[in-house]
């Protein structure tokens, strides 16, 4: 069985499995399947890195009749990042979603939801079919909304509903674009659309799909649903929502603008994508500065960090795609997505440990916790370093690549934004750090936190740093099957 099919189906099989099996088998099964899927993801990465992109025609039918799936370097990198985050979340949830701590409801439902999300994410990373992507996105949205509502408070329900309204509106806008594309070209395949005869309605189709995906990616000003939804979910769920879910819709945006319809990427359109990104960096950063709860700070930081990714459009898209710097910008944006995923998951899992330890995530209640839980404090600090883009971390590599491209492209204001955004990040992560490392009276912990649990966020945070120290390997992986117009450079 090829690694591609395994990556695609194992999470779904596992989700059905944990749904059916009796309670005592649930966690062993989830752990075993997480290990197997991670192994399959690794195998897929190796295959892609060695032998180039892997194609699969589902059902043996080639487009336009069937659905094509393709693992290129970008998909493989996101799949392995997802596997690492999911693996860590599985370990954390082993402690946090146990029946004794979280009740039988969460102990039942978290596992299948997590695995369904995993399967849906992998399906979206791999799919080359616009409608199939829609179904995958809907599966992601439903699982994500359910995860956001999992804690069962009125706030969580309200936040999940608001999330759902944005997600539904976004899906339908995306679908409207898909409908127009099919009606005009008789195909849904990204590869076939690249070679289409341009039609009048293409710009509208691309615009509608983009608008829908922006709402799902929570790009400013569509970000309002994100912080409450991410902050009111249980911590392992927040980690999944913040680290992984927005990346899926962003990936589709990249596929559309770089692969399906690169001919429509005019400078003005690309700028229109990046300007809200810049606004997100600043506005998300400013709002993160004034929050009083740790999870809200982390969630607003997600709003800000997602903004950076959109710099890829003016720096590597359209006519600029053939320029030497485009490869750097393209890779830099993906590097940012990867390192943000690892670091943000580490942060939310750390927040989950604090909430388990003191029952609150208000900064005032976290004072001095680094002394009682030093590994967690260290993990939080390392993750913050990545998110600030300080060396030597994956975030720094991303920032370096993007800044270099910005200068090379003569678009230096983006470099200014990257530098300023890093300082804002330093500002908003400074407050929780000071609270954690304060020398106040010893806080009595509600429960002791096993060392194994404490080490979970640390492993993720160290991985986000290692991504910077060992960035040559992922860099080479990302070049596999990079969209043709952008591969002229470097």
């Amino acid at each position: 069985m090829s690694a591609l099919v395994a990556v695609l189906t194992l999470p779904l099989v596992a989700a059905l499995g944990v749904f059916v099996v009796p309670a005592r088998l649930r966690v062993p099964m989830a752990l075993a399947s997480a290990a197997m899927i991670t192994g399959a993801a690794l195998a897929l990465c190796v295959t892609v890195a060695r032998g180039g992109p892997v194609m699969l025609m589902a059902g043996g039918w080639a487009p336009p009749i069937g659905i094509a799936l393709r693992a290129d370097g970008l998909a493989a990198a996101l799949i392995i990042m997802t596997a690492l985050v999911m693996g860590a979340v599985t370990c954390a949830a082993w402690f946090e979603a146990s029946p004794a701590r979280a009740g039988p409801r969460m102990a039942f439902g978290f596992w299948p939801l997590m695995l369904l999300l995993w399967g849906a994410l992998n399906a979206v990373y791999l799919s080359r079919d616009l409608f199939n992507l829609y179904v995958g996105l809907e599966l992601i949205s439903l699982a994500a909304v359910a995860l956001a509502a999992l804690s069962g408070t009125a706030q969580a329900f309200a936040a999940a509903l608001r999330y759902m309204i944005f997600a539904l509106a976004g899906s339908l806008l995306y679908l409207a674009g898909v409908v127009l594309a099919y009606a005009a070209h008789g195909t849904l395949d990204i590869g076939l659309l690249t070679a289409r005869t341009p039609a009048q309605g293409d710009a509208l189709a691309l615009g509608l799909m983009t608008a829908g995906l922006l709402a799902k990616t929570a790009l400013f000003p569509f970000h309002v649903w994100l912080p409450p939804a991410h902050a009111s979910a249980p911590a392992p769920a927040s980690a999944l929502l913040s680290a992984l879910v927005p990346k899926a819709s962003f990936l589709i945006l990249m596929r559309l603008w770089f692969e399906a319809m690169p001919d429509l990427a005019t400078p003005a359109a690309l700028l229109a994508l990046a300007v809200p990104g810049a606004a997100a960096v600043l506005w998300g950063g400013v709002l993160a500065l004034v929050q009083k709860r740790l999870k809200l700070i982390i969630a607003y930081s997600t709003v800000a960090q997602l903004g950076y990714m959109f710099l890829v459009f003016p720096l590597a898209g359209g006519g600029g795609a053939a320029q030497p710097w485009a490869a750097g910008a393209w890779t830099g944006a993906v590097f940012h997505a990867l390192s943000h995923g690892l670091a943000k998951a580490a942060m939310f899992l750390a927040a989950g440990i604090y909430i388990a330890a003191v029952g609150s995530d208000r900064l005032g209640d976290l004072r001095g916790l680094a002394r009682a839980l030093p590994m967690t404090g260290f993990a939080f600090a390392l993750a913050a370093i990545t998110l600030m883009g300080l060396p030597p971390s994956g975030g720094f590599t991303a920032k370096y690549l993007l800044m270099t491209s910005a200068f090379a492209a003569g678009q230096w204001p983006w470099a200014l934004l990257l530098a300023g955004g890093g300082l804002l990040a330093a500002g908003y992560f400074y407050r929780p750090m000071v609270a954690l490392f304060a020398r106040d009276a010893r806080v009595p912990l509600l429960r002791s936190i096993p060392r194994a649990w404490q080490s979970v966020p640390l492993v993720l945070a160290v991985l986000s740093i290692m991504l910077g120290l060992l960035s040559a390997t992922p860099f080479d992986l990302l070049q596999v099957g990079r969209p043709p117009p952008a591969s002229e450079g470097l």
Partner: protein
Amino acid sequence: MTLTYYALTGAVLVGLGAYGLLAVPHLIRRIIAFNLMGSGLFLFFGAAGARGGVPDAIPQALIITGIVVALSASALAVGLVVALARRSGKAFLPDDYPADDEDRAP
């Protein structure tokens, strides 16, 4: 000409649904609006697929899939509305999320 009627009806339904999804406060109505928007879009798609004389089977299959997906989403949304109402007594969204409420984190 017939197809144009249905396509334009679909287009208007999409607009109407989008308006409802954004502006109507009662959450059950928002779910209705979402369904209108979806089915309007499908109508447009169906009309477009029927242009070749013989109806194209692919749009039909996609629409059936879309209808089922829309039902799944509606069901979860309805469940959330009922759950929210049970917890807060409201069938609408409080205007703004209280960023710094007194509730402890979950």
